[in-house]
């Protein structure tokens, strides 16, 4: 078998195993709840029969391994269970399916993350590569100092500074990003301006620093020096010698930061009251709505794992040493 294919398959297998363990941990969350949480959800006035029926619905009368298999099977079929909220002591069940809660919000979050990635990735790569090439210049130093400062800022600080400047003192953009499904694309884009700007500022700083470090590391390798010493032109050194080896670290940097974006979205969504999955998760944690928390955690974790897997695979596929085996 071709070494590239073998390594990719091995990495994919590893990814599946990781997903399995992560799902196990997320599933275990419900098993760690205190025993009387049926009463806590339904209210103290709940009849013992109602509580019993509720426990039965969650499958708590079955062994844990069976529940896990049922849960995974249901998730694979797109059924994430029913929310805890909307249940009452009287046994009246007004709860909603978790999928119905999540689906529109997941789309919103992907929209926000997608826009941010479209702006942030090219910008960060440009800044990272140019600073690495012009190392220790004034340009490099000033970009570096600026990014080191933004890295240290919490997302909500950046968000509020932007709100004060761009929404309050000079009202250019709206401070609330309350998008609705009926909105046109341009209107959506306008509403998302400040949240995606906040995320871009935070992500670009991280990504640019990592790109710069990766490129500098690369340019210090002996074969680059060799190419320079034998008189290859500067452009050719970069395109023919540095770039083929740079894809892997750059892919890692991008995937790592997109994964970071997935997490950063939570805080930013809360600041701008953006109806995304992050805000849903925070609300669910506050009201201890475990099925929703589980579903959100699963989505976030799966995205994170898949992005990192993708970076690994890009790294393998573009690796010249694996592509041209001796």
């Amino acid at each position, binding site marked *: 078998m071709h070494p590239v294919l073998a390594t990719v398959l091995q990495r994919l297998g590893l990814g599946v195993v990781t997903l399995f363990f992560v799902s196990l941990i997320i599933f275990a969350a419900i098993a760690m709840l205190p025993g009387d949480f049926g009463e806590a959800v339904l209210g103290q006035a709940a009849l013992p029969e109602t509580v019993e029926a509720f426990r039965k619905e969650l499958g708590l009368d079955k062994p844990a391994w069976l529940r896990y298999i049922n849960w995974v099977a249901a998730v694979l079929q797109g059924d994430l269970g029913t929310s805890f909220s909307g249940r009452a002591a009287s046994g009246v069940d007004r709860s909603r399916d978790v999928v119905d809660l999540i689906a529109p919000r997941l789309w919103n979050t992907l929209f926000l993350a997608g826009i941010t990635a479209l702006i942030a990735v090219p910008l960060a790569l440009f800044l990272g590569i140019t600073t690495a090439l012009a190392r220790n210049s004034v340009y490099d130093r000033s970009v570096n100092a600026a990014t080191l400062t933004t890295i240290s800022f*919490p997302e909500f600080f950046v968000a509020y500074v932007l709100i004060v400047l761009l929404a*309050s*003192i000079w009202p250019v953009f709206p401070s609330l990003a309350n998008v609705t499904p009926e909105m046109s694309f341009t209107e959506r884009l306008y509403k998302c301006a400040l949240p995606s700007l906040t995320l871009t500022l935070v992500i670009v700083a991280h990504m640019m620093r990592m790109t710069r470090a990766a490129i500098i590391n690369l340019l210090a390798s002996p074969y680059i020096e060799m190419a320079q010493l034998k008189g290859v032109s500067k452009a050719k050194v970069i395109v023919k010698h540095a770039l083929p080896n740079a894809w892997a670290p750059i892919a890692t940097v991008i995937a790592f930061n997109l994964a970071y974006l997935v997490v950063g979205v939570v805080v930013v969504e809360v600041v701008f009251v953006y109806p995304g999955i992050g805000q849903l998760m925070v609300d669910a944690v506050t009201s201890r709505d475990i099925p929703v928390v589980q579903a959100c955690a699963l989505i*976030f974790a799966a995205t994170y794992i898949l992005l990192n897997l993708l970076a690994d695979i890009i790294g393998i596929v573009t690796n010249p040493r694996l592509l041209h085996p001796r």
Partner: protein
Amino acid sequence: MSETVKSYSAADEVGAIRMRRTRWQRMMIDLKKAPISAWFGMIVIAIYAFTALFAPLLAPYGEAQVFPTPFAPWSMTGGGEHVFGTDQIGRDVFSRLIYGARNTIGIALATTLLSFIIGGGLGLVAAINRSWLDQLLSRFVDVLMAIPSLIFALMLLSIFGSTVGSLIMIIAVLDSTRVFRLTRSVAVNVVVMDYVEAARLRGEGLGWVMRREILPNIMPPLVAEFGLRFSFVFLTIAALSFLGLGIQPPTADWGSMVRDNASLIQFAQYDLTAAMTPLLPAGAIALLTVAVNFVVDWFLHKTSGLRDDH
């Protein structure tokens, strides 16, 4: 006839008793060479530490003392009662900022220490053991690290509830994974050294080998990591508090102060100072992390020489 020799003698120079600089002298020499950003960072950290330690003496009012006027305006020029006004239920913002230093930094510091005790201890054990225990711990850490830590923390908080104790435990455990990885990877190179082998052959116990033989040799990266981990934990706790899931009221805390006063921000056009109220605690968080990052940056540069900043 005087015995004082003015002329230079190479033999004297070589033969002179070598003065060993004390740890203090070496530290002062290093400090003198520190760049301005590191100095800035250290001064800021010192101010924060001072504020946190002497919070009750510095604060004009009590931590949860309520005054009749909520959202009172700023009065910087003296005469007024509240320098930075009051918050949504009439608590003095300035006092809460000062107490917040104590609570927020204290909890973040406790969490970081705990995560270093857990992660560092297990990392050293794994590095010395290098067999099934190492494999088990490393794979377990891999799985834990596959879940974004803020998401994991949110999930665990929904199960265990948001108390300070569970907050510290959850974040320390999640964060110890990274400490474990670093400690293990640097300790693995030290464990194979001859002097460690000699100590073990001498019959020293695991604890001695860990503490006296390996730990001193892996200290610099761990110290730098402590700074980075601290600012990361500090930001995570601030984010959780901001989301209303971290440190709970009435404890004064910067993250939740931002959340509580966030509505003031829309008045920036009419009263800029009012809009600055939520930015004060947020800025306090940002300033401390910037300061820590500057110091860590310098420290990394100093101890590794070659290592480029990241």
